[in-house]
């Protein structure tokens, strides 16, 4: 990706436009800072306001589960920038519960946020990317999916849906120069993971080939790979971190 070194560079007006969802904290916020540092124009969204500002970063209040929010967000990006190069579907919620004890409302919440939210952003982002016959869509799964971790049935079902959707979308969007890939981080020190019992997280880490917590930088590294223009032959792929 040809991008200026300085976030304040006037050349930023010609630099790639990156959308990240769920940017209030955690991986989303890290990815905002990461892409701003590379000189990209970064747009983010969350349901609540963020407590930071960055040159080159624009924040929108939007709920990924609400179609009107997402259509409005992408219409604004189209109007402001006329392009979208990369869309990163980071927004998500966890649901840790035994399958037999999972309330219906929790099922709905996790599927709606993790799957429908991702699908809506993919759909509307791809429409904007089609204008330039170029785009990189990067979705999120989890190492817990191939590990089939007990107590995460609803969460992992939502991530399985994201993976299946992404792989089909990769085929449908290939003629438009748009790739769709998935990164599956292992446990990282985020609010979401802090809400999971330590022994369960420990068991996940123990089953990885690389037995340590992931870092935000590990995720950014895979995202960078998928986002590169040179990765135009890489689509429909899932990279799990930690060695599953």
């Amino acid at each position, binding site marked *: 990706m040809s991008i200026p070194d300085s976030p304040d560079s006037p050349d930023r007006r010609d630099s790639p436009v990156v959308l990240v969802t769920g940017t209030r904290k955690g991986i989303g916020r890290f990815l905002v800072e990461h892409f701003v540092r590379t000189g990209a124009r970064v747009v983010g969204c969350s349901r609540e306001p963020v407590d930071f500002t960055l040159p080159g970063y624009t924040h929108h209040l939007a709920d990924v589960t609400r179609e*009107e929010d997402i259509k*409005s967000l992408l*219409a604004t990006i*189209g109007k402001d920038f006329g392009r979208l190069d990369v869309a990163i579907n980071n927004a998500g919620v966890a649901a840790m519960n035994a399958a037999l004890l999972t309330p219906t409302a929790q099922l709905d919440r996790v599927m709606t946020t993790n799957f429908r939210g991702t699908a809506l952003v993919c759909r509307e982002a791809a*429409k904007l990317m*089609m*204008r330039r016959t170029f785009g990189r869509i990067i979705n999120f799964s989890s190492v817990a999916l191939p590990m089939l971790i007990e107590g995460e049935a609803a969460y992992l079902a939502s991530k399985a849906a994201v993976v299946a959707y992404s792989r089909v979308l990769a085929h449908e969007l290939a*003629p438009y120069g748009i790739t769709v890939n998935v990164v599956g981080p292992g446990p990282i020190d985020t609010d979401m993971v802090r809400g999971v019992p330590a022994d369960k997280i420990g068991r996940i880490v123990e089953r990885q080939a690389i037995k340590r917590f992931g870092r935000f930088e590990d995720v950014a590294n895979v995202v960078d790979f998928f986002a590169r223009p040179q990765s135009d032959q890489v689509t429909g792929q899932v990279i799990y971190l930690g060695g599953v």
Partner: protein
Amino acid sequence: MIQRQVLVDLIIATLKEINPPALAASGIEPTADTRLFGKQGVFDSIGLVSLIVEVEQAVAELTGKAVTLADDRAMSQQHSPFRNVGTLADYTLTLVHEHPGQPG
């Protein structure tokens, strides 16, 4: 309020811009009756996706309304609104009028 003919013209302009092979080969000037999809349609499924996306964006620029043409209602209709230019213009007009916000 936006008129049907404006949308017909917009769809025809978009159609010409995309210029699908079947249209180019026919050498026919598109009209409101030009078939878009299905038997004797000028688009295959991928081409129709492009048309719908381009028309949605053009409508948003024209009216400030972000309509979704391929919505649940369109997909469940016995007669697809994507049959020809005229039916697509009619359906688009309906959505623009129903969309909240400033009058289209």
